[in-house]
């Protein structure tokens, strides 16, 4: 029951404290990683990656690194490259991601013996 009588100054009135809802912090976690902008995009872009092999090691490496850097910049723009890599690595230990990782590897395996 709130006291409504006008005691002049309004000191006795209860102050309502509203809990302000904060916008939850955006995280680079497993859901983001497995979303469309995550690994699927990386795989798509990797298809366009042309590495030259022997004799072009340095340019290959810088192209490879820039693939990852730009992909991470799109996926999670606020973190620096190395920080984002650490986050991805950490997310990689979650069960969901582990399962997905195994699947991605299985995609590349030759399907012979296991399919009867």
């Amino acid at each position, binding site marked *: 029951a709130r006291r409504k009588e006008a005691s002049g100054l309004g000191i006795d009135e209860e102050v309502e404290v509203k809990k302000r809802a904060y916008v939850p912090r955006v995280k680079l976690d497993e859901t983001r990683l497995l979303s469309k902008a995550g*690994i699927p995009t*990386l*795989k798509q*872009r*990797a298809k366009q990656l042309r*590495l030259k*092999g*022997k004799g072009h*090691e*340095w340019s*290959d*490496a*810088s192209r*490879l*690194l*820039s693939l*990852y*850097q*730009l992909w991470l*910049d*799109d996926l999670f*723009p*606020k*973190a*620096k*490259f*190395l*920080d984002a*890599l*650490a*986050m*991805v*690595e950490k997310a*990689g*230990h979650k069960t969901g*991601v*582990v399962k997905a*990782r*195994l699947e*991605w*590897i299985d*995609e*590349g*395996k030759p399907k012979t013996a296991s399919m009867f």
Partner: protein
Amino acid sequence: MDSEDVNKDVVHPEVRAHINSLVSALGGFSIEDDGKYTLGDDALEVLRDLKRWIRFYDEKTNRMDVARCLAEANLVGGDLLQIIALWQGNGTDSRFKSRIALACYEVMVPLTWPIEKDKERMTVNHHRHIPVLEVAQLGYKRAIINFDGAPILHTAVRVALPSLAMPIGERTARDQGIIKLMLFFLRNIAMIAPPPGMKYEGDEALISRSATIDAFSYQDIFLTLLTIASNMGEDFRTEDVTVMEVIFHLVKRVDVKKLFLEEEQLKKAKSNELAAAMQKEAAMLASFNKTAPKRHNRFGTMIWVKREGGKMTSLSGQDALIDAATRERKMDKSKSFRPPKRSAKEEMEPKDLGPPVSLTHSANKQLRGFVEEFLDSGFNPLFQHVRKSIDREAPHVLNYHRGQFFYLVAWFLEAERMRRRAKKGKKPAEPSQDDVSSFNLVAGVLNQEMFITLNRWLDRAYNDKDWKELTSVMRCYTEILLTVQEMTESGNEEDEEIADNILSRLFYEESTHDAIANIVRTYKDQGFEYLDACTELTHTYLRILEAYSKQNVDLQVRSRKRTRRKKRAAKAAAEGEVEDQIPLDDDESANDEANAEKTSKERKFDFKKFAARFTTQGAVDTFVAFTKFYQDLDDSQLKRAHRYFYRVCFKHEMSVMLFRVDIIHHLYNMIKGPEPLDKNSPMFKEWEELVKQIIRKCVKKLEERPALITELLFSKINSTAHYLEYGYEKQTISSH
């Protein structure tokens, strides 16, 4: 200023009054007698009173008020040293004066005692007084080692001489106490140093390590230390750790390599060092200049970077024009977000041992003389005795003594190796009997007992998470391995046989292999010193074991396996059928529960399987963390990391462990990044080649197995790592 009126004194005014009156009653400079110091009438009693004040006011009630008052009254420099100076030669009243001198040392020892900052016992008083007292102690040290009137350190020994001369059986408790007092005095003087982070305002040359060593040598303290150390176990027993402490504080952080250089070589080494440092700086500046703007800072270049999906990113600054890599770096740099959990800033400098020491030429020579004589006479008796004391957990051994013991053993073993090298360089054709005895000089730490001790503390320090101690144990282990290795190459048949024996015993226990592999796998935030020690141990251990197992193909190791008692009982029933599982210790009746659960069996050593334990992701991460310091590593450290990565990638075929984006990024930047390794350094070429090979292998693997493009992001799981490396599943038949 009238200090008595201002009631802001930090100590109780009455205490100060008492102390001041005592100090003035002690004596003073006389007006008549040429300004010589004259003792007060009751000087001895006054000294006793002072001692009592320290004991019953400061120590009992855990304050530091008296020490503070004494520091401000300038007791040490103004009175005590003068009094000690009076006791010169053999006067008639020398007995009285020697008692007075002893009383002076009895006051000085608590005043110079190292201040421990144990958070749980510290009171407000401690926080109030410690900064002042630390400065005061530096003043004491300066006064004591630079005192012109008399050799104060030498006099300390003189005070203890009657007690020292007595056989151990005849010494009374008081004699023991005097010897202890003298050693503690030496320890305190050797130990006092400016605390880390404090800038000492006086002349640092007067309290530096060089000055200390000069004073110790000039006042014949080294001879005393040598005498006591070489008679350890006979005439001295409980003094072992204190002598060790004195030596520890004299040699800690001294670079052994420089110690054994001749004057000319030392000069050359120092100028080389300077040249190398300047070159390094020039290389650094050159690498900055590559991306430095060519025009003034308001030139206002702005560019657009086109990206996937029609996106644009704008960048400003002329360096954005250089190349794609620089642009990407610039994009990255402008981000300000930091992940919430920031790891503590990694620092290279170890704090507990203090900064590295550089010695003057004379100090270097004197310390070298001492080290050589110590190796010749005192090393074995002292360290064997200390080891025994540590093993039986003697009451006079404190916790930090263990760390010092391992540190010193490592230090002196390295010194011995350096000495041999220096000797070899000097006279090449002389493998006389002098050389034969050289390894005998350090044999005291190469016996089986020492290895048991080492293994025990390796385990215990690891389990207790005592990283400082573990670091020194690892360093000690490394040095022992290196010494043994040198023995195998000595060309002397006897030495080689002994070395072979040591190695076979060393590598016989599989538990050691496990422990070392474990340590290197589980590094996390323990600091650079620890990182350096554990990578060095791994490197040395792997290399020596590899060479040894190549030589001895049928090497056996003793592995421990846990089996249930029941299983064992069943086995015992069916005895004879299972030959290889029979435990070594057959006396069933005497076994207790714990023993019964463990059975040991010998099996053939397989180096490949063993090395596989060092190619796990954890170990790789440790070495990567180590290489992150590449700008500050010296050549041998860079070589160590290089060999390891080479081993992982090409010898043991686990290159996938290196294929992670952050590792590739780090390796690439080491060679081609904005702050690369110095191109003129001798290790640069090797690293460049290695990184190139790793990248080439990575690109090849990417083509073979496209799945790697996602796996590059993560640490590998063991099961998939094998597939990624070889392209087929590992045969997982459990050979238990």
